[in-house]
């Protein structure tokens, strides 16, 4: 399998946007411009950048939720875009996603037990009883109870919903998890709990994370490596300490400067 579990090579994706007074003109917006990534087994790669820099497009393209214009995503050496539909669906259990908005990411008309168990049902893993046990076990692991299985998503708070989302993604024992701003919609106090949970689960289940965020404070706690995106390009990448200590690009420097409380920290040092 090698050191890298997921490799992305020269990803390109652009959108055509109507422009001009009557929408007759078109402008091409490059959401991804020759993006390449390597995700080490068991590590966390953070992708940071301001909104509109193409982070979420990257997340969706990596998981083949949107077609790429060109480039390839290699999971365990196989190009996902080349796989026939049924094999891609089969491989999807290894590649999961945790979404940003805990209010939009759970089907309001399904019970929590159904939501978390959907993956097991789709991949026909175990019989009904085994699936139920696995769901209960997963819910307990993320800090919910067995009784929560019968509730609907609207009965939970944002933080609890995000836990449900995490349980849904991890119930299949995936290898790679793409976290698309998993804590940016949560209160600061809840953010820490969720980040801690994600870290613990990473060690227990040998997960590799691609962690997408605009918040460098959050990234610092979870990431091993950082890739900085700006206007669809990766402008800088490296180990976390190097980037924080000596950013080489002006854009990265500005990002770091924009962390609130940073100046006070620098002064106190």
């Amino acid at each position, binding site marked *: 399998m090698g050191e890298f579990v997921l490799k992305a090579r020269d990803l390109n994706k652009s959108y055509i946007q109507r422009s001009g007074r009557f929408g007759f003109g078109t402008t091409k917006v490059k959401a991804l411009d020759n993006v390449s990534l390597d995700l080490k087994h068991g590590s966390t790669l953070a992708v940071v950048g301001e909104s509109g820099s193409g982070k979420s497009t990257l997340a*969706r393209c990596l*998981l083949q*939720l949107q077609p790429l214009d060109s480039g390839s995503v290699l999971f365990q050496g196989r190009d996902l875009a080349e796989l026939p539909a049924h094999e891609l*669906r*089969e491989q*999807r*259990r290894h*590649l*999961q*996603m945790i*979404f*940003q*908005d805990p209010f*939009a*990411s*759970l*089907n*309001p*008309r*399904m019970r929590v037990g159904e939501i978390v168990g*959907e*993956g097991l049902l*789709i*991949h026909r893993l175990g019989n009904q009883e085994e699936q139920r046990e696995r769901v209960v076990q997963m819910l307990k692991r993320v800090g919910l109870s067995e009784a929560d299985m019968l509730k609907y998503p609207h009965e939970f708070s944002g933080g609890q919903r995000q836990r449900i*989302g995490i349980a*849904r*993604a991890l119930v*299949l024992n995936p290898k790679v998890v793409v976290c698309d701003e998993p804590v940016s919609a949560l209160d600061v106090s809840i953010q820490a709990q969720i980040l801690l949970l994600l870290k613990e689960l990473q060690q227990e289940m040998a997960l590799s994370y691609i962690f997408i965020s605009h918040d460098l404070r959050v990234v610092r706690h979870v990431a091993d490596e950082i890739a900085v995106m700006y206007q669809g390009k990766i402008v800088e990448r490296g180990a976390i300490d190097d980037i924080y200590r000596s950013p080489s690009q002006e854009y990265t420097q500005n990002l770091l400067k924009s962390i609130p409380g940073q100046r006070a920290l620098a002064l106190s040092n």
Partner: protein
Amino acid sequence: MRNIFRNPLAVAGLCIISAILLMAIFAPFIAPYDPDAIHVKTILLAPSAEHIMGTDGLGRDVWSRMLFGARISLLVGIVAVGIATIIGIFLGAIAGFYRGWVDTVIMRLVDVMLSIPTFFLILAVIAFLTPSIWNIMIVIGLTSWMGVTRLVRAEFLSLRNREFVLASQTLGAKDYRLIFKHLLPNSLTPIIVSSVLGVASAVLVESGLSFLGLGVQAPQASWGNILTDGKEYIEFAWWLSLFPGIAILITVLGYNLLGEGLRDALDPRTSKN
């Protein structure tokens, strides 16, 4: 669903529709006379204690005929809308889910169908077929699916990229699972509202067809053909035209109230004020 009962419009509509439905279901028990029995001695009697809505030109009891006519009107309305809704969900789901050329083809088909005046199309088609209530139901159903199609398509387009749908796709769900488990249950509200409103217009179309003699055929009673029978005697037997007219009016009103009320009650954007 519970705040439907706090909406006075919806409650009024629901009461009207339930009352008419009950009368239609229990027509054989409520009706004092055989609706098709001809009596030479009781021709064109005005409303009285014996015949509360009077009798028609063949001596038949109008109240009994109205009750049995309600069965036809409601049956045609519900079955026709059922057909239209099934077609609409099917085509709208395909168009909204797959987009691209499939969407373009279906939407242009909708545009073509909408550009044809439906009532005249139905008239033309019925003229070639034997007029029977089954033909009428099918023809009304086949010419009134366009609204539902547009509605379902629009719902699917807006739901398709919502995170919970993407999440299911990431889990490896097949298209039918995404459609039936995630998209359709979350677009049911507008579909129900438009179906209820659709029944009202189907009832009107059926009455119109029967009035023109292309709908339900004598001796079977329908509100439309009671009205037709009445028009020959309108100068001296007002009850023959008045009662079926009022029945049609109340039914259509009831469905419209229920539909509008449901829309208000089920739509979170309007239910707050």
